[in-house]
């Protein structure tokens, strides 16, 4: 498959049409900076009744329920849910380890980020994109509305997977960046030499509803079926470290066990911190992922 060159390569009109009906679901109700389209736990001025409470001195008399006062001769204040906007942060791993696989992991992650961002824009959420993969964090923040779609696409096309590490720094930057409370989607293979735990810990405790989408290529999930054979000298694309491997049945089986252990460890880590983990293989059709997998996982509705 040729690499991505145009915004249409990221998301085509057919997919856009199908995504128009989707919305991002947050398990939490967040406080936005402006009035948005989703309920907040803060009591506000929406039309949706939330509760009553006793009147106290200084309360706005407009919210006094006079019908109850007439029946009970006591003042009660009506409380309404306030509707707020959703902050949607998409963090794309652009380290060198993403530059591999067939289909390419980085391309897949950018197309996924494009589709999720599009859903966010269409639903008038505040969408921010981050690219991490080195000490330098690249970002595109504060987008809202469908008209920002092309801008978001151009930004994603300009990204290259050429960084090294940077996951922890990237997550810390996002956590401290004042993006507001919202949904954080981390698109990465999570194969970091220095580990993923510190980075995820930064964002897990900051009020984000975090979704960890682990993007792996088929060559990584089942190397035996995808041409990995013989005596090999494997070179790490990020660190340049070399590992000599004789791809015997035993070694391949052990690799699969290591991968399963690693993925299971990541999933357990996420569960403990209320992070939703989803393993995504790049061979999976993007439509299927968005319209089936992620809906079933509760990210989209």
């Amino acid at each position, binding site marked *: 498959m040729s690499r991505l060159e145009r915004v249409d390569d990221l998301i085509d009109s057919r997919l856009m049409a199908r995504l128009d009906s989707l919305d991002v679901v947050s398990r939490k109700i967040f406080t936005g900076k402006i009035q948005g389209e989703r309920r907040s736990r803060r009591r506000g001025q929406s039309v949706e009744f939330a509760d009553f409470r006793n009147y106290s001195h200084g309360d706005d008399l407009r919210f006094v329920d006079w019908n109850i006062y007439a029946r009970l001769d006591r003042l009660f204040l009506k409380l309404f849910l306030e509707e707020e906007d959703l902050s949607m942060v998409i963090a794309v791993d652009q380290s*060198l*380890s*993403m*530059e*591999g*696989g067939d289909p390419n*992991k980085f391309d897949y992650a950018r197309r996924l980020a494009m589709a999720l961002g599009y859903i966010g824009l269409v639903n008038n959420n505040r969408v921010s994109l981050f690219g991490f993969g080195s000490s330098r964090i690249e970002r595109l923040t504060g987008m809202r509305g469908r008209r920002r779609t092309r801008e978001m696409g151009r930004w994603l096309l300009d990204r290259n997977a050429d960084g090294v590490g940077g996951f922890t720094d990237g997550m810390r930057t996002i956590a401290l960046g004042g993006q507001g409370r919202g949904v954080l989607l981390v698109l990465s*293979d999570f*194969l970091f*030499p220095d580990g993923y735990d510190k980075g995820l810990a930064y964002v897990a405790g900051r009020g984000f509803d975090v979704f960890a989408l682990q993007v792996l*290529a088929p*060559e*990584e999930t089942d190397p035996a079926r995808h041409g*990995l*054979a*013989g*005596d*090999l*000298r*494997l*070179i*790490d*694309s*990020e*660190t340049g*470290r*070399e*590992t*000599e*491997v*004789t*791809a*015997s*049945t*035993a*070694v391949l089986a*052990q*690799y699969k*066990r*290591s*991968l399963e252990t*690693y993925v299971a460890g990541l999933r357990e880590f996420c569960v403990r911190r209320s992070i939703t983990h989803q393993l995504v293989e790049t061979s999976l059709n993007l439509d299927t992922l968005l319209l089936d997998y992620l809906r079933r996982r509760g990210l989209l509705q």
Partner: protein
Amino acid sequence: MTPPLILSIAWLTPFAASIVALSTIPPLIALYFLRLRRARRVISSTMLWTRATQDLRANAPFQRLRFSILLLLQLLALALVILAIAQPQVDLGESQAARVVFLIDRSGSMSTLDGIDGATRLAEAKRLAADRLRALHGGGLFSGPAPAVMVIAFAKDGQLLCPFTDNVAQAIAAVEGIEPTDETTSLLDSLELARAFTTVTDPDNASPVVADPPAYELFSDGRISDLNRTVLRAGEKLVYHRIGKSTTPNAGIGALAAARNPDRPDEVQIFARVVNWGSTAYSSDLEVRVDDRLRAVTPKPIDVPASAIDARGGIQVAGETQVVFPSLSMPTGGVIEVRLAQNDALVADDRAAVIAAPPEALRVAVVGRGAFVIRSLLEGMSLASLELFALADWNAKVRADPASPDAFDVIVIDDAMPDALTRGRYLIFNAPPASAGVSPYGTKESAIVRSVRDEHPLLQYVNLDDLFIGSMQAVAAGGDIEVIVEASEGPLIMTMNRGSLTYVYVAFDPMESDWPFQRGFVNFFANAVTWLAAGGNSVADEPLAPGDVAKARLPRGAQGAMVRLPGGEEVALPGADASSISYGPLRLSGIYRMHWTESKGQLGPTQLAFAVNMNSRAEGRTETAQEINFATERVAGVQGGGLTESALWPWLLLGALAVLCAEWWVWLRRV
């Protein structure tokens, strides 16, 4: 003393091994080079691969052993290589002893033609023994010092052909020089012979010490007659190289006899017994040849039943058939030979021969007293003529014609002594032939017999236990006189054979004893007349067995004594001036003919034939024994001399190489 452990690998085919090594090792190493050359490949992260390989390395010694075809193949290859290097001594017949004695059977059964391309068993044994010698001295990477080897060929007795030597060429030459025989098989003599070379006699030690028990390598078909008397001593090891096939049948002539009809001396009756050692019945015609001319054939093939296991003894008993031929007209002497028309794998026992003496129409003269008893005995025999001479008449006759004694087959001298005994065959009673080797020194009274040579043909059916002699001549026997009966007072009956002069001397007057009243006297008289008429060579009448020695008495002055072997070869016999000659042992069966000239210009060659027959009862069983049973030990046979097994290591290595290739192929298929 514990023999040193020798791991012997022979380079039997160094050239072929070099070719195999050059054609297989470099490709194999090249394959391994290919295997170790790793392809470079950039991947997203090596983190998980590093973990996987580390886990494998860390856990391998402790993880549960899983079935792996690769592991199996590698273990198999390793086992084959270890086996090849270890050279299992017991199974491969390799010798660990410092001294090895090669015992090669050359008995009659080893002439059986059931080897490769119709070769005899002896040829097969020689070939295998030579290969074995080369293997023992072949050297090699893992070989120790080669053992010293001794070569003994054995049949009826053992013959040392090569004492202990390190010179393999000498030993092989000795092996290749072994000639076949038709003798019976005896191993004990050969073992004793070998032990004599391995026993150290210490003057300070009463019992001999076996310094270094040798290993015996026996190349035989296992048909050895004296195994039940043979014991392997402590430390001695024997490898029985089985030669021949265990299914080779054989039939042969077990016995042959011929006798003249007493009523019609010109006719000869022939008796034969055919034995069959095969597991199936045997059928064949029998031929009778006289002096190599076919004289009779059985009217229909004779049937011999198959051999069977004797229910009582548990031993195998040959099937037998007796054959009696119709009388043959044979007015002269000659060689009677009986042959089986259908030859089998062992030819030597398919024929047998006897020597028939000429019909005895004897001419007898009696000189001297002519006692009634003697005359009566002679008149009772069917003689051609019987003439009586007074001593003076006989002396005059001889003086007139010195050759006149030749006109009589036997001359009986009764209590008288002619002037000269120069030629002729005499039976002499009482008067000592002082001019012909006997020295009288008086007379003795009341003599009794002290010793008797029972086996002498003169004494067949003659019992002298009750003989009482009133008076006898006291004589001293000369050097060429053979005493066959000795009394307490000196020689009593003696013989002398000087070729032209032969006599039997009875040193007493039968009339002075009770002998004429005994049956033995009649038998003795008949034996003596017959023996003398045959020239004193009674041996010619009875067939010899292979391994026997043929003896004959020669006349004084006989020249050019020769013997013609069954194959037609002429061999000069030494000692022409001796009164007797001998030749032997007669290794092969067949007809041997001795001949000589009595004296230059006087008499032509005199011929004497000997028939040597292979004893088919002893050697006719040609099925190779699978094992041999000594008195206290059982030794299983090794097929083909064990040489195939000793050359097993190349096959082991080839097998290991094949397994390695299979392992490499499986490995490739897996990755």
